[in-house]
């Protein structure tokens, strides 16, 4: 006969141990974005970011981004960058492409310190910038080691 209260006690230490570490802010993310775009306008569209809206462990979060582009010499994606609001740093990864890439695809595993917004931005050869965003909830694991 186990009471839910007793089970909750197991979860409590995880809350107590959450380290008080400085994190990025929406402002820091905006600054990192400006560095990537040089202040150019970023439009929504063309970019599709795929990430689970509910993440069960922030240590390894599969993320993929695909940009709608013909990937020719004249018209291709030069770079894709991922930014976040509340990790210690606003930048996650920047990937570089050429027409030889065939496709503007990026798939990797990232870390998320907590629930937050993510932004994927594509820089096109023509000088335009396109984006997609995602809001991700990172749940609290019950049983952590140590």
């Amino acid at each position, binding site marked *: 006969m186990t009471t839910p209260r007793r089970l909750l006690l197991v979860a409590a230490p995880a809350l107590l141990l959450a*380290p008080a*570490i400085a994190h990025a802010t929406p402002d820091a993310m905006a600054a990192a974005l400006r560095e990537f775009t040089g202040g150019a306008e970023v439009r929504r569209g063309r970019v599709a970011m795929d990430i689970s809206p509910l993440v069960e462990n922030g*240590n*390894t*979060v599969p993320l*993929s981004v695909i940009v709608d582009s013909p*990937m020719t010499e004249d018209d291709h994606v030069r770079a894709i960058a991922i930014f*976040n609001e509340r*990790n*210690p*740093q606003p*930048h*996650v*990864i*920047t*990937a*570089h*492409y*050429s*027409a*030889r*890439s*065939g*496709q503007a*695809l*990026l*798939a*990797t*595993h*990232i*870390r*998320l310190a907590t629930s937050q917004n993510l932004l994927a931005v594509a820089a096109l050869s023509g000088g335009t910038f396109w984006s997609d965003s995602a809001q991700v909830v990172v749940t609290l694991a019950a049983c952590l080691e140590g």
Partner: protein
Amino acid sequence: MARVLINIPREIRAGETIAIRTLIQHAMESGYRPGADGNVVPRDILRRFTARFDDEVVFAAEFSPAIAANPFLSFTMNVVAGGTLTLRWEGDNGFDQTETRRITVA
């Protein structure tokens, strides 16, 4: 030498765009994590990945500490003819590892 897994499609036709998937064994120590003694463990991450096909860079990436431990990366490239794929990971503390794979087309 860090362990590396590189997944390349077995059969490739000329002109095909293929996906290459890579995993490399690395702790990606973020520089924000307190160790057992309470002090922050110094940062030790991979910083840069470069994929060359023969002499041409087909894909490159810069990592921040927000890339998960044992980094996974997938990218695509258009294969016109056979050649050599050279993958290089560079990081903190002088980390520098290169792997090559021969790519043949059917």
